[in-house]
């Protein structure tokens, strides 16, 4: 049974941070919402979860032809498809998560209008749900590496850190986008565009070594730069782990997340009125 408690309802103002205890009380909702998203995404589709493998593989096929064969992008002596796939897997996660999280409030406005729950659960569960696709794509990546005879190294121990930065960045950006999109529907259109542009500002098709040295600290503010170069370094072993890029990217991801949470919570009170 739940403990009896008193709640004060009043106009709130100013900044507040996430209520972790309340979030914990609603943990089952987080779980079911994430699960529902996965289930709905693949409901009534013949390939089902196979899309989680197919989507990055098809991207890879296009990349391999355009950048690997025709333009011959520098890939540090690694076969270009492997070089690209190490980036496509985390990038696909990042791109899909921020789109999903960014739309989460607007697409579930009816729920916001009918029942109270911590609103942050909506973007949070989107970002978590996408981790399943990511795991499947990542397993595919590991199989490809194994087929190509690239041995696992001790550097792979850094992968959990990379995934953490990736999720933080996706959630941070997703929170900003979804909060803005509730009020300004412009962001719905801007989001897709932003993700497309973002791919060019991230070393998905090319290597960070192609970016002028002086610009790299600025470039690394994009958290996915460090994450992707980290994936390459730990899985392919062709380069050293980019600690510098990771430090900058990790800090900027943390900043995005904290500011995103604060902004979300500040705007939360008006969601039901304007969604």
């Amino acid at each position, binding site marked *: *049974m*739940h403990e*009896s*408690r*008193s*709640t*004060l*309802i*009043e*106009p*709130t*103002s100013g900044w507040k941070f996430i209520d972790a205890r309340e979030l914990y009380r*609603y943990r*089952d*909702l987080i*779980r*079911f*919402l994430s699960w*529902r998203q996965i*289930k*709905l995404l693949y*409901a*009534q589709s013949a390939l089902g979860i196979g899309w989680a493998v197919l989507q990055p593989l098809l991207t890879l096929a296009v990349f391999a032809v355009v950048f690997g064969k025709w333009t011959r992008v520098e890939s540090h002596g690694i076969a270009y498809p492997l070089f690209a796939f190490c980036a496509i897997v985390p990038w696909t996660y990042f791109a899909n998560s921020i789109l999903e999280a960014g739309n989460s409030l607007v697409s579930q406005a*009816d*729920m*916001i*209008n*009918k*029942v*109270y*729950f911590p609103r942050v659960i909506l973007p949070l569960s989107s970002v978590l749900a996408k981790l399943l696709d990511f795991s499947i794509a990542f397993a595919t990546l590991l199989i490809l590496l194994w087929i190509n005879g690239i041995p696992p190294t001790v550097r792979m121990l850094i992968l959990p850190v990379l995934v953490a930065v990736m999720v933080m960045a996706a959630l941070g950006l997703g929170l900003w986008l979804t909060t803005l999109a509730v*009020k*300004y529907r412009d962001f719905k259109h801007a989001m897709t565009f932003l993700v497309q542009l973002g791919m060019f500002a991230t070393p998905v098709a090319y290597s960070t070594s192609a970016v002028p040295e002086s610009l790299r600290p600025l470039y690394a503010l994009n958290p996915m730069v460090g994450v992707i170069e980290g994936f390459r370094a730990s899985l392919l072993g062709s380069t050293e782990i980019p600690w510098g890029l990771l430090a900058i990217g990790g800090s900027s991801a943390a900043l995005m997340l904290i500011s995103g949470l604060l902004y979300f919570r500040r705007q939360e*009170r*008006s969601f*039901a*009125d*304007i969604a």
Partner: protein
Amino acid sequence: MLAIEARNLSKAYRIGTREAAPESLMELAGRFLMAPWRNWRRIQRMDVSGQPDSSDDLHWALSDLSFDVREGESLAVIGRNGAGKSTLLKILSRITEPTSGHAWIHGRVASLLEVGTGFHPELTGRENVYMNGTVLGMTKREIDRKFDRIAEFSGVEKFLDTAVKRYSSGMKVRLAFAVAAHLDPEILIIDEVLAVGDASFQKRCMDRMAEIAREGRTILFVSHNLDLVDRLCKRAIVLRQGRLTYEGNVQDAISYYLTDDSQRGAVRDLSKHPRSGDGRARFTQVKILNASGQPSDYHAFGNSIRIAMTINATCDLRDVGVAVVLSTVSGSRVITGWNREADTPLHFERGENHCYCEFEDLRLRPGHELWVSLWMEQGGGVLDFVESVTEIECRAQDDDSQRLSTDRAQGVIALRQRWCSDVPTGTVKSRVQVSQ
């Protein structure tokens, strides 16, 4: 012990303001270029929390509302559409914040503003029970424990592993209500959700609600169905235009509400009435005219009645569908007049337009009060919808209608009736004479 203490609750929304039409091509072009800036300003102003000003485009859905609910008490909130009932419940369920004032809630709250929130057609019944239950604040363990009872209550056990999109609407509602009925809150907030399903299911819902009330839980109940209100609650508050106008025992509150005729009127200005629709055209006034064309707030039995509307259109509109709906105080629709059904196309020009709908030989049981709602549509888009804009009182006219019972339970429509029996009237008379 108090369960809810509401103090000076107020809530403001900003209502849209219309702009004058551009007068020249240059002005139109200028408007077009400035549109992003104007839109941005408008969106900025949508959120009125923080510093509410007193500008005239603010609509106070609730103003200065204070009341208490004791622990274990069932309190009804009565009021017309747009009186602020739903806003009040939304504030108390923490869906939206008050603009000013505060409320203390002592205990775990579950609110049912709509059954089936979180239901998704692609998921199975079982999955939706878990989804809906957690949305309403239950944990998975709690649902596991109550699952069998929920399934039994819903009566759709056989279809629990079927996707909800294959359910009939009745089955969906039953399953949704079954989940809701098994929430175990200390305070239950219910908005108009009992008016669903067939009669036997409604009775089951009612019994369950009464049971919850007997268990000593606090219930805050909103419904247009006054019979239900009467059965379920002992005390009631009446809201009118966002203000508390009456507080007391439920029977008194109901009769206060029914005799409160401030909403009635033969001619009503609708420019500030709460509404929905895209606003390309709006109802600005409604007039109720009697058989002789005079404004009248009552309808005389068997006469014709004319509902005349003034419509302000922002552009030329061809082939508009306009509907006039008459419904009872408990919310059931009695009559819908629709120009498409009458095969009368309506076109409006930019600016003010007038049209009317006349019902001929309208035989409505005296004692009823009917609400008028107006709706119009064009090309599949709703232009404007205003609910409960005015009220028409039904009165007897001649000797025939004087004989009609004014008991509202006997139905709204009183048709001309002819009775026959296989015992001729004369025979009965003579037998009566014999027995004397």
